[in-house]
């Protein structure tokens, strides 16, 4: 297990390096002179030259990248053009809201999507199943920001005063209110994914239910309830876990729109705000941060998969099927 963890982590290094290179390229290719953007249009020529020197803009591009990269490894993601604050500070500031949103959405996805899929598979081709399938297809088709707009329309105009639909209260300030402020955004974020997970769980369950070991368990008189919960679900959830992992990454990115609609001061909002005022160090710093998180989530999922799947955990590596 430890060896597996280390090897997975090691395999992430080239991807992380590539992420940093692409980020740097995006930063440098983005329109505008960084020094000019940094000191402002009206700054005197000496200030501009000083800034250029400070930012090593006249050095060869590889030297620039190396300096930038070593800064990054030390935890310095650069400085905002607009308020001259370190990007890491901005991230630390905005991360909690996004994290809370993502975790809540993930909970909704797992707690609603998986049971719906299981129910659908157990009632295959009957009315319940058909309703769930149509519902999940519809859910997949409605993008999260559309759901968000309708939630705002519903709770802001049709039934006002039931749920807060704008703004965010930190967890530490008021636990209940905080959860309330993130509930609607989490629903919007989760809705399409619930459909996806329900569909996936259904097909995966059906596949496992058709396996010989389910027949064998039945032939040995094992109770149907036990067959479903112990034999089937665990194996059926293997592919679901993989997809959930990938989705967690997308939840971070997907929160961009939802946070904007609901006015939640999270990473997504920071991305949009910084890009709108062309504060590239912030935009690209946050993008890079999210990309790195995405990579790590995938590693965690891989490892988790190993925990669930004994064949990987026991580390049996022979050609046998």
């Amino acid at each position, binding site marked *: 297990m430890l060896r597996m963890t280390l090897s997975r982590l090691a395999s992430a290094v080239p991807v992380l390096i590539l992420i940093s290179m692409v980020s740097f390229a995006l930063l440098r290719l983005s329109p505008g002179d960084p020094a000019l953007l940094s000191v402002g249009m009206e700054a005197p020529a000496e200030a501009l030259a000083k800034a250029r020197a400070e930012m090593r803009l006249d050095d060869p591009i590889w030297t620039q990248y190396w300096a930038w990269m070593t800064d990054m490894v030390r935890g310095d993601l650069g400085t905002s053009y607009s308020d001259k604050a370190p990007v890491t500070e901005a991230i630390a500031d905005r991360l909690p809201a996004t994290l809370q949103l993502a975790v809540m959405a993930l909970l909704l996805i797992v707690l609603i999507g998986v049971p719906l899929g299981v129910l659908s598979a157990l009632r295959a081709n009957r009315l319940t199943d058909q309703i769930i399938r149509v519902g999940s297809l519809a859910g997949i088709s409605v993008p999260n920001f559309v759901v968000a707009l309708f939630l705002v329309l519903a709770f802001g105009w049709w039934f006002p005063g039931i749920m807060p639909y704008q703004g965010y209260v930190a967890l530490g300030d008021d636990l209940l209110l905080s959860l309330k402020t993130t509930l609607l955004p989490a629903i919007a974020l989760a809705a399409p994914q619930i459909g996806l997970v329900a569909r996936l769980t259904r097909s995966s369950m059906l596949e496992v239910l058709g396996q*010989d*070991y389910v027949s064998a368990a039945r*032939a*040995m*008189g*094992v109770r149907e309830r036990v067959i479903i919960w112990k034999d089937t679900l665990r*194996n059926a959830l293997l592919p679901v876990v993989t997809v959930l992992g990938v989705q967690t990454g997308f939840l971070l990115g997907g929160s961009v729109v939802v946070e904007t609609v609901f006015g939640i001061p999270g990473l997504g909002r920071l991305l949009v705000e910084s890009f709108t005022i062309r504060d590239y160090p912030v935009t690209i710093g946050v993008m890079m941060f999210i990309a790195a998180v995405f990579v790590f989530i995938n590693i965690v999922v891989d490892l988790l998969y190993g925990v669930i799947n004994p064949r990987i955990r026991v580390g049996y590596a022979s050609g046998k099927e």
Partner: protein
Amino acid sequence: MSTTTTDGATADAAPAVPEVLRVTGLQTSYQFRGTPVPAVQEFSLSVRPGEIVGLVGESGSGKSTALKSILGMLRPPAEVVADEIVLDGRDLRGLSADEARRVRGGEMSMIFQDPINSFNPAWTIGSQFRRVLALHRPDLRRKEYDAEIIRLLRGVGIDGNGKLDSYPFQFSQGQLQRIMIAVACASKDLKVLLADEPTTSLDVTIEAQVLDLLRTLRAERGLAMVLVTHDLSVVAEMCDKVVVMYAGRIVEVADVFDLFERPQHPYTAQLLRAIPGFPHDGERLYAMRGAVPGLDAQIRGCRFADRCDAKLGSICDTQAPDLYPVGDQGARAACHRVVTDLPTPTVQETSR
């Protein structure tokens, strides 16, 4: 009439011993795109204690379906009806779902074709074994389980010490099939073992071990077995009685000796001809033309008429033959030739 005469070759065929399993009038249909399609029709079977009955036919002839129907493993939308399914004097049709479940693995159990897929890949062998003991061995206490498992595994030639926490993929196919047999025979009340092509996916050498094990079980515990196979050499080696199925129906029932010597149904005869001889006799191997008709095919006459080498004529295309008795030993064949006085040409042509 055919050539079957008095035949005392099968010693244990004393009709006085009551059957442990008797099935009559079994019909199973599946739902296929909303319409029921019969997979097994007018199936009947009787097995005495200690008897091994072979169930033979090409893939798709309904053998496995028949077994699963008998064990009560099919659930809606599949539909199983029967005149009787009597296990040891008790008709299983009247049982509640819970009682039927307790019969499975208790008095009658089943082993499957692919031993690797017969075990849940996510659980250890020990935990899967213990679960069955918990269901069918009320005489044991929880802490006695492991010792019993080791004992049962020794019975199938596997040293289980230290292997109970291993996962299925850590065993070989042959080992897994033997473990499966041990699991299936864990109950003390076991009377009938249904084996669905238990050796088809195994290597030839391992096949012999598994068959040997089944024979030992029969001898030691007096188990009755129904052995589904499409391998006639396995039938010859293992079985006392043979039921031949074609396209969901029984076409011939016979004593194993008679079946190979004097097949009554052209299908049986053609099956026998299709076995490669060893050593090779230099002749070209016989291959049956055509394929088993689809279950939803509407056939008025004999289902085998299309592929039959000994077709009588139009009667085969227009009238379905009954399962006529042959001789007085309980043998039967579903062929018009049995009731006409014509000799069965296929017998001479095909016996080698």
